[in-house]
C-alpha cells in the first residue's frame, strides 16, 4: 500500500517536472485505439498505463488493420521490434511495417491524432526497432518515450528534424500522468 501511495506521489511529481521539448503537445481525445509496431510487449505495458490513467474509452488490438479504426479519435502506436512477439502474432517484419504504415495513413485520412511511444527503454533499441521509429515517428503528432531510450539522442534528433513534439519521462510508470494531462 505504501509503495502504491509512493508511486502515485512520484508520478504526480514527474507529471509536473517532465521535460517537453520543441513543438506543443496536441490535445487528444477518446476513444483510443492502442496497437503495437513490431509486436513487442510494450503495448501490453501501455494498456496497463491507460488502465491506471483517467482515460477509460480505449481498446488494445495488437494486429488492428486500417479498416478497423473508424470512429476512433486517437491512435497510439507502441513501437519496438520483438522476434518472439512477431512469431507469436504470426506476422513477419515486412508485413508488420506494411500494416502499421497503412494504419497511420488511414488514421490521418480520418483526422485521428497519432501517438508513437517507446516505453521499454534501451533494451528495445536496435536495428529493427530503430527502423520502425524512423518510419513512424515522422508520421506522428506526438512522441512519448522513456529517457533511457534516448541516451544517444536518436529520438531528440528525429523529432527535431521532423518538428514532432517529444515528451521524455524518466520511467514508464509516469506515462499515465502524461496521458491524463493531454487527453481532453
Amino acid at each position, binding site marked *: 500500500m505504501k509503495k502504491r501511495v509512493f508511486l502515485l506521489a512520484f508520478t504526480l511529481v514527474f507529471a509536473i517536472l517532465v521535460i517537453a521539448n520543441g513543438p506543443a503537445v496536441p490535445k487528444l481525445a477518446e476513444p483510443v485505439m492502442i496497437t503495437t509496431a513490431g509486436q*513487442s510487449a510494450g503495448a*501490453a505495458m501501455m494498456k*496497463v498505463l491507460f488502465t491506471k490513467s483517467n482515460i477509460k474509452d480505449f481498446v488494445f488490438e495488437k494486429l488492428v488493420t486500417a479498416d478497423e479504426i473508424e470512429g476512433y479519435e486517437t491512435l497510439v502506436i507502441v513501437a519496438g521490434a*520483438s522476434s518472439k512477439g512477431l*512469431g507469436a502474432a504470426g506476422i513477419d517484419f515486412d508485413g508488420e511495417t506494411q500494416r502499421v504504415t497503412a494504419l497511420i495513413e488511414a488514421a490521418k485520412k480520418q483526422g485521428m491524432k497519432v501517438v508513437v511511444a517507446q516505453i521499454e527503454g534501451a533494451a528495445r533499441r536496435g536495428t529493427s526497432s530503430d527502423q520502425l521509429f524512423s518510419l513512424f515517428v515522422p508520421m506522428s503528432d506526438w512522441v512519448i518515450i522513456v529517457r533511457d531510450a534516448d541516451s544517444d539522442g536518436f529520438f531528440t534528433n528525429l523529432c527535431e528534424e521532423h518538428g514532432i513534439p517529444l515528451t521524455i519521462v524518466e520511467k514508464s510508470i509516469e506515462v499515465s500522468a502524461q496521458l491524463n494531462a493531454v487527453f481532453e
Partner: protein
Amino acid sequence: MKKTCPNPAFLGFLIATAILVAIPGLSYVKQRAPETIIPGPGVTRRGSLSDYLPALKGTSADTPVFYLEGKEPGGTVLLVGGAHPNEPAGFIAPLIVVERGVAQKGRVIVVPYANGSAISHTEPLEGSPASFSLKNKAGETRVFRVGSRLSNPLDQWPDPALYVNEKGQVLSGSEMRNLNRAFPGKADGSITEQIAYAIMEIIRREKADISIDFHEASPEYTTVNAIVAHEKSLELAAEVAMYLEFDDIPITLEQSPKNLNGLSHREWGDYSDTLPFLFEAANPFMGRLRGKTDETLIIEGKDPYYLAAAKAKRLNVPYDEKGLPLSYRVARHITAFRYVLDTYNTYYEEKAIIVTDLPEYEEMAYRNLGDFLN
C-alpha cells in the same frame, strides 16, 4: 611349490589403472549426491516429485518439493528452479524462498531442482566447475552442484537425430533431454518428459494460480534480463516489469510465442489454469564470450571479455566493472517474484498470496549471498 612374485611392472599398471578409475568414479558419485537443503521456519511439509508421478520414484529425476502453507487460505504459487541446473540463480532463488520465506496467506510450492537428472553431470566440453560454495552467516560452507542444461545421458540415451516433442515442435535431437522443451510432458515418455509431466501434475492437482520458472542466460542473448509471459499473464507481467524498471532493475518483457512449443511459459498456460511466468537473468558464466570458467565467475560474474564486449556495445544488458554477481541475479529473481505476488494480490484479493521474510533487493544485491541461507 615355488612362490612367484607378480611382475612389478604389471603391479604398477594395475595400481595406476585403479587410481585412474577411482578419481573420475569418485567425482561421478559425488556429483550424484544431493546437496543439503535446510528448510526455514516457513516450510510446513516436504514431498517429492514422484508424489505426482510414481514412475519417478527411485530414479535420479526424483527431487524434493517444499510446501510453505499459510494459516490463512489464499491462492497457490509454484516456483520451479533448476530446470536448467547450469543456471545457478535459477535454483538459488527458489532455495532462498525455502530457507527464508514464510507464507502468511495462501501457499508456496517450491521445486528447487526440477531436473534431478541434469544436476548430476556438468555441461560437456564447457570446462564448467562441478560446484560452487557460499558461506552462511555462521561461517559454514554451503556447497551447491553445478549441473547441465540437459538430462544426464546415463538416464536417457541415445538422442534421436531430431526430437519431435508432444506438441509437434521439431528440435535437434539432444533437446529431447531439455526439460524446458518437454512440456507438457508424457507420463510414459522419456525421463525428461516424465519430469515435465510431473511438474504439470503439480500445477493441475495443486491448482497453482501462478507458476514461475527461474532461469539465466548469456548477456549477449536476445531474451535476457527479461520476463517471458503467456498471453494470460502478460498484463500482470507488464505491471511487474514497470515496478522493476521503477527500482532501476533493467528488464524487458516478452510474450510467449504461440508457435514455440515445449517451453514452460507456453505449455503451463495452455495445459492448465495457471498464470505462467519465466524469469531470465543475465549471467556471463552462461555466455560464449567468457574467459576463465570457474567458481569465481559464477559467484562474482566478472569477466574481462564481457567488459570489452559491453564497451563495444555488443551486449543486450548493462555490464560494467561490478560484473553481474550471483547475489544480484538472485536479488532480481526474488524481487520479481515479490512484485508478481504484489500485483496479483491487487487483482485477486480473495486469492491473495502473502509471503514475508524474503530479503529486499538492496539487502541482497552485491552482498554476501550466503547470509540469506541457513
